Every structure is written in structure tokens, then in C-alpha cells.
């Protein structure tokens, strides 16, 4: 019994001590003590954790590099495909813009019937200014039909096959177009040249002409319809002792970047050849 009491007292004392500590802990009196006791443990825990993660990363990184490389190659391939697609779409957009412009032009002149054609080549001889288009007699094209763009006069159909046609440009040295100045009712002659420059010839000396004046087809001779824009006067050459004055013209059409044209299919050119006086031998 004597031995039993002290042991019970020890147990009770320990229980009271534990209960007291728990009570103090719940009531918040031990926070300072626990935090100062746990902080080194947390530090150690963090250190161990970071070292563990470093080891795991070291082991698994090579596999990730391989997969990343594969993924990178895949993405590069996608980028390449998308870039090709962008270039393709830009090309289609440019073509669509050209066609919309031609369509607007055609709508603005409902009296004419048009066939749109793409420019597919140029004459192999550098002396000549001819283009080839991808529509021919199967599409209603005939010799002599005028060819225009939304900007103005391009030329006329010179030769036709079933699926293609050759167009003589107004810049060709052999081309002669009867034109008139917008501001004055005087017919003059527009000629091409080997360099692609376009000139006005046979202008009466008494005619006052200024740079910037607009030139339109006159319709004289029946080769081209009336009032199609051809270009603008750039400079005038006038000499006192010449019979006529001449002028340089800037065509409204950019012949170097011609992509698509419109052929006026309901215009029938008049062949005045038989009416020309025969030359005496």
C-alpha cells in the first residue's frame, strides 16, 4: 500500500502535468515556446525537401529534355505550316483584292460585258510588249477586243487560241491609240515605244497642254471604246519650228505588275483597213 501510493501519486502528477501542458497549449500560452522550438525543425524540413526535389529533378530532367525537344520540333513544324498558310492566304487576299477591284470597275460600267483573265506570261521577244492571258475563244474572246483593268486601258487582244490569248499592250512600239484630252476636244495619237514609254504625237501647235491632264480614248477608228482612261500628261515638248508638239504620258496601268485584266467582250472593233486608200506603186 505504501509502495502503491507514491506510484499513483507519480502517475497523477504526470497526468496533471500533461493535462496542464495541453491546457496551456490550447489556451495559447505555449505558442512562443512551440514556435521557437519548431522553427529549426521547419528549416531542416525545408532543406531536406529542396534537396530531395533537386535530386528528383536531376534524375528526371534528361527525359524532359527529350520530350521538350520532340515538342519543340512539333511546334516548329506547326509554325512552318502556319507560315506557309499565311503566305498562301496573303497571296489569295492579294488576288481577291485585284478581283474585287475589277468587279467594282465592271459594276460601274454595266453597259459592257467583261471576261476576267489572269496574266500568265510575256512575249519571249524583248522588243515586243505583249502579254498572255488564260482565257481564249472558248470564253468568247475574239481578235481586237479591248483589254482594261480597273485603272484604265491595257491594250487589245491580238491573237486567240481556245484556252489562251495574246494581248498587245498600249506600250508596244507598234501600238497606236486614238485618244483625246479630257479638258479639250482635240483628237491626238498615242504611241508606245521600245522602252515602254507612252507618248502623245500629232498634237496641234496651237493647243495648250499642261502636265497632269487626263487622257481618254476617243473611240476614233473603232479600235477601242470611248472614254477609257489611258494616262496623264507628264511633260510637253513644244518647238516653234515643228509642225506638231508631242508629250510624254504616264499610263495609269502599272504594266510591270499586271496580274489580272478584263476583256470587253461586247465591243466589236471596226476594221477600217478596206476603207484606207490603197498606196500607189
Amino acid at each position, binding site marked *: 500500500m505504501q509502495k502503491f501510493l507514491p506510484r499513483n501519486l507519480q502517475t497523477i502528477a504526470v497526468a496533471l502535468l500533461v493535462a496542464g501542458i495541453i491546457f496551456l497549449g490550447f489556451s495559447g500560452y505555449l505558442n512562443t515556446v512551440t514556435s521557437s522550438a519548431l522553427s529549426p525543425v521547419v528549416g531542416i524540413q525545408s532543406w531536406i525537401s529542396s534537396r530531395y526535389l533537386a535530386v528528383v529533378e536531376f534524375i528526371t530532367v534528361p527525359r524532359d529534355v527529350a520530350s521538350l525537344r520532340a515538342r519543340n520540333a512539333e511546334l516548329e513544324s506547326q509554325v512552318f505550316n502556319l507560315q506557309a498558310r499565311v503566305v498562301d492566304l496573303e497571296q489569295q487576299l492579294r488576288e481577291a483584292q485585284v478581283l474585287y477591284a475589277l468587279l467594282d470597275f465592271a459594276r460601274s460600267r454595266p453597259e459592257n460585258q467583261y471576261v476576267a483573265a489572269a496574266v500568265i506570261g510575256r512575249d519571249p521577244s*524583248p522588243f515586243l510588249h505583249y502579254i498572255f492571258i488564260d482565257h481564249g475563244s472558248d470564253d468568247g474572246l475574239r481578235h481586237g477586243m479591248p483589254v482594261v483593268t480597273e485603272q484604265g486601258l491595257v491594250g487589245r487582244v491580238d491573237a486567240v487560241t481556245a484556252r489562251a490569248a495574246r494581248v498587245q499592250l498600249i506600250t508596244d512600239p507598234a501600238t497606236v491609240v486614238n485618244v483625246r484630252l479630257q479638258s479639250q476636244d482635240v483628237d491626238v495619237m498615242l504611241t508606245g515605244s521600245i522602252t515602254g514609254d507612252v507618248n502623245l504625237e500629232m498634237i496641234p501647235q496651237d493647243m495648250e497642254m499642261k502636265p497632269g491632264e487626263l487622257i481618254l480614248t476617243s473611240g476614233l477608228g473603232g479600235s477601242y471604246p470611248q472614254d477609257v482612261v489611258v494616262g496623264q500628261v507628264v511633260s510637253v515638248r513644244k518647238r516653234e519650228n515643228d509642225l506638231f508638239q508631242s508629250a510624254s504620258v504616264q499610263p495609269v496601268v502599272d504594266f510591270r505588275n499586271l496580274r489580272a485584266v478584263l476583256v470587253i467582250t461586247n465591243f466589236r472593233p471596226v476594221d477600217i483597213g478596206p476603207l484606207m486608200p490603197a498606196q500607189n506603186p
Partner: protein
Amino acid sequence: MDYLLALPVFAFLLMLQTAVISRLQLLHGAADIILLVVAAWALQERVRSGWIWAVVAGVLVTAVTALPLFIPLAGYLLVTVLARILQRRVWKVPILTMFIVAFFGTMGYQFLSLVALKATGVPLGWLESVTNVIMPSALLNLLFALPVYALVSDLAHSVHASEVDE
């Protein structure tokens, strides 16, 4: 058998010429790869079909160009004549011969075109034509002469090697 190649080769070259080469201009001159191929083919040692190639090229170009009828045919035959004559005289240096034929052949062909166009009433100036078209075209043909000669030589070797194998 190599004359059978002439039609597909020149059909392809004509498309290339009209669609691409004619747009690449120096001043107002342009290279003529058909002329260069005719010249290079005529300069090949074992080739005997140079005349046929010139005729095929001339007929095909005549079919599409607005030049007076058969001027390309006459021009390419002229180039073949020049190539054949020079091949016998400068036979040890074929590249040099190619350059000579390319330059003088171009000059000859372009002068022939110029004379024919003037004869049909096209108002072309001599000096303007020489400085703006003929000389730039000859220069461009000189630039293209070497690669064209190399390609045509390879073609000739492969064609004639296969004939020897047969």
C-alpha cells in the same frame, strides 16, 4: 533518239521563258534560255540532233510570239550554225565557245528580229534598240550561259550514256 527529248524540253523551257525569264529584265532586255539551250546542245560533242532541236525550238517560239513568222526559227538555226562552226575551231575550250555563241548568237538573233520588225513597219530606233534591248539581252545571256551549259552537258551525257548502255 535524243531528238525525241526536244519537244518536252522546249515546251517546258517556253513556259519558263514566258512566265518567268521574260519578266526579269535588265533595262529592257531579257535573257533567252531557249537560245542558250539550243546553243549548248549544238556544242555537245556526241550530239547530232542540234539542227532538229533548233527547228523544234523555232517552231514552238514562232507559235507563241508576235515576232514576224519564222524569225525565231531562222534565229535559232543561225545560233546552231555559229555553234557548229565554232565547235570545230575552239573544240578544246567548250565553255569559252559557249560564251562566244551566247553573245554573238544573241546579237545575231536580236538584230534579225529588229530588222524584221522594222521591215513590217514597227517604228524602232537602231541606237535605242541596241542600248536598251540587244546589249542588255546579250549580257543576261552571258550570265545564264554557264549554268545552262552545265545542265545541258549533264543532260547530253546522261542521254548518250544510256544510248551506249543499250
